[in-house]
């Protein structure tokens, strides 16, 4: 645990000094860095729910809710984005609580269905109320920190650290045993005295709030959104593909998965014939990962490592 803690401290330090390695003046690279941290937050937060064995298909929706929360708070009360982000996070937490309390006491199937339905209904309904959401035209707000992408980098960095801390906290406290038991068998977990529903709801709300924070950052950063963009199902997909690719139920997995997959996406989006259909790769990654590498890249690396000591021994003895 201590070694991991040091490794994460080094990683955070590296993230913190990144803008000063000659990147801070390149607006495109800074955009990528901001967005990368944003997706890492999404991926980490999705994985926390997955640890309880639940499939959330609404993380893109909480993201969008956070985005619209900030935008509407700004338009209605002319609130500073930083205040708006807090309000948006509270709103997202409330919605997630309502959704979680109703669905998480039932079988996992219901939760998955309800989250997908929730995500889609937000998009269609938001489109139908242009007075509130701006309709297809969307809604705009002034840029965050007057467009300073280094400052915004540190803001999303702080949110990312929050997500990282949540993920590590679930791993390094008694919660880890609770979620592992729940994932293996809910009934048994219940018998062992774990308040299954409560653990699931608390982690879901925390996770949704983190996704909402990422969205609340996105809106003033990009300065414009509309229902089709804010509630894009592609973001829900991204937030689950990245952890699956990197390695489920870990903290490093979602981070590594995001860095690799998001870079690939950046390339595919501008390369025919993929373009908008680049998500076909996401579908492929999910299917292949579930079938052949359920523990993602990290699992693959671990398997290789476990095999290597044998060879090393053989090598030593042969001398």
């Amino acid at each position, binding site marked *: 645990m201590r070694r991991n803690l040091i490794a994460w401290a080094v990683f955070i330090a590296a993230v913190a000094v990144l803008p000063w390695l000659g990147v801070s003046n390149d607006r495109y690279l800074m955009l990528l860095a901001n967005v990368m941290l944003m997706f890492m937050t999404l991926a980490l937060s999705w994985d926390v729910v997955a640890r309880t064995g639940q499939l959330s298909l609404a993380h893109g929706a909480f993201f969008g809710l956070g985005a619209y929360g900030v935008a509407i708070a700004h338009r209605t009360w002319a609130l500073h984005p930083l205040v708006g982000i807090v309000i948006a996070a509270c709103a997202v937490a409330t919605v997630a609580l309502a959704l979680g309390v109703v669905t998480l006491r039932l079988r996992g199937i219901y939760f998955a269905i309800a989250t997908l339905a929730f995500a*889609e209904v937000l998009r269609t309904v938001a489109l*139908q109320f242009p007075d509130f959401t701006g309709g297809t035209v969307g809604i705009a707000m002034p840029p965050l920190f007057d467009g300073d992408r280094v400052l915004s980098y540190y803001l999303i960095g702080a949110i990312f650290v929050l997500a990282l801390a949540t993920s590590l906290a679930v791993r390094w406290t008694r919660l880890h045993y609770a979620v592992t038991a729940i994932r293996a068998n809910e009934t048994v977990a219940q018998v062992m005295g774990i308040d299954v529903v409560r653990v699931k709801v608390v982690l879901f709300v925390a996770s949704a709030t983190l996704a909402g924070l990422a969205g609340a950052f996105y809106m003033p950063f990009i300065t414009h959104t509309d229902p089709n963009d804010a509630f894009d199902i592609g973001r829900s997909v991204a937030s689950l593909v990245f952890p699956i690719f990197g390695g489920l139920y870990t903290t490093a997995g979602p981070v590594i998965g995001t860095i690799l997959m998001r870079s690939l996406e950046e390339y595919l989006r501008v390369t025919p014939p993929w373009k908008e259909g680049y998500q076909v790769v*996401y579908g492929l990654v999910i299917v292949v990962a579930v079938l052949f590498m359920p523990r993602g890249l990290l699992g693959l690396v671990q398997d290789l490592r476990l095999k290597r000591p044998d060879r090393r021994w053989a090598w030593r003895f042969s001398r």
Partner: protein
Amino acid sequence: MEALPQTLLFGILRSGLYALTALGLAISLGVIGVVNFAHGEFVMLGAFIGFWLYLTLSGVSGLGPAVSPLVIVIGLPLSAIVLYAIAAGVYRFTLRPVLRQPELNQMLLTFGLSILAVNATSIVLSPQAKDANLAWRFDLLELDFVNVTFARIAAFVVSAVLVGATYLLLARTKLGKQMRAVAQNRLGAQIVGIPIDRVYEFAFGLSAALAAAAGVMLIFQTQVSPFLGLGTLLKSFSIVVLAGLGNLAGVIWASLLLGLAEQLVSQYVPGGAALRDGLFFVIIFLVLIVKPSGLRR
């Protein structure tokens, strides 16, 4: 209230395709016990097969838009067979290996398949929605109290026949009885010697074939696009949840309820056209609060 008979009729007609799609979903859920997030994509692929057939036939035959009956007669079996084959392959190579894995992995798999199918279709064909300029689409049947398009009637009749046939299959044939047995008690079914693996494969293929038929009938009413699956899937989900997961008998009533509710809301509630598309979620959410086991259980 003159519009009431028309509204009710439209609601009932609307529920036909809903029942056809939801029945397939309920079968895969009830028999195999897997939530198929790719069910909407079966509908979408069926619709594209119908659309391709319409383009080919109307070109070859010179009939133009009047090719409708041919599209149905050839399209239904064709798309059903193709989708049955696709689904059987999907079952053998992807679904069967994860049947013993946690629920999360199963759901992830079908969700991944859905994304794969949508985006592959959008790359290979095109992301744009396409219109099939078929006869019947706007041709009105004028009765003394209502006007209905032939497309709606055709879709309802085909759905009713196929849903009826499926229930007959479930009630009377050996395979149908085996499917119901597996749905009731997996272990018991295995003990009495039912080849459970073959039943699963057939059930999954059947559910895809029903979806494909719904897809073909859909091209008479709406545009064909790679993205039409999600909305279809969610409405089917709301029906299946309303009927009670895996409860095959409740699907018809639940479809009628959704169809009528949607039609009534869009007709009588101010701003209802906006609310109509969100109704499926209201139903799911209410059922989960009030009676998660479904209305009739």
